């Protein structure tokens, strides 16, 4: 019985993991993370605006009640959007966790 050398098998070049182009380089440019960050900042400022309106009303200035209501609604929509994005992210994470290996 002739056993062939295993040389042809060992030739296989080892898999090279690509280290460049990971998350670190993604984060720098217009990545999802920075967009999400910007979205969060906008949501925060919308919430601050509605809080400022509420303060003004509490201080007795009800001259533009509708502006305050609209600012609050806008903030609520923005917050809802961020929460939905978060839900989608968590869903995706769970999906990955459930994956059979």
């Amino acid at each position, binding site marked *: 019985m002739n056993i062939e050398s295993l040389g042809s098998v060992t030739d296989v070049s080892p898999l090279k993991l690509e280290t460049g182009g990971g998350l670190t380089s993604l984060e720098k440019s217009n990545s999802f993370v920075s967009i999400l960050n910007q979205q969060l900042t906008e949501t925060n400022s919308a919430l601050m605006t509605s809080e400022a309106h509420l303060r003004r009303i509490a201080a007795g200035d009800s001259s*533009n009640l*509708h*502006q305050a209501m*609209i600012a609050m*609604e*806008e903030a609520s*929509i923005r917050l*809802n*959007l961020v929460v*939905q994005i978060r839900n*989608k992210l968590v869903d995706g994470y769970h999906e990955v966790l459930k994956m059979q290996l």
Partner: protein
Amino acid sequence: MAINSIFGISASGMSVEMTRVDVATRNIANSHATRGVDGKSYVPLKVVSTAIAAQNFQSQLAAFANGEIPGAAKIQEIVELNVAPRMVHEPGHPDADAQGNVAYPNVDLLTEMLTLTEASRVYEANVQAFNAAKSMAMRTLDIGGHK
């Protein structure tokens, strides 16, 4: 975000209607004022509002440069109505002229009441438009929801 500009347009409509109610209330409250500020008697006021141009790119850009929302409404000015005062013969009145006539502001109560009713209806309509835009935005966020 287009939804924000809809909110801004609704808000501008509400502001205009609030001002109309404000002016109508002022007219009604002063309908028997025989003395106004700086010696002149009170003259009924009227709100003149205009639309902010949104026809083409240039006009929209100009609106943004002024900090306005294209397509929104804004108050151009509050003008004094060009009407002669309502003369009433009241000889004993301290503001009566030599003939015993007193000049009252020519406030048309019927018009003012109509303005009040109409302004509050249009205000409601603006709220409805806002609510429609808001519920559309909220429904959009329901896309792909589980339950």
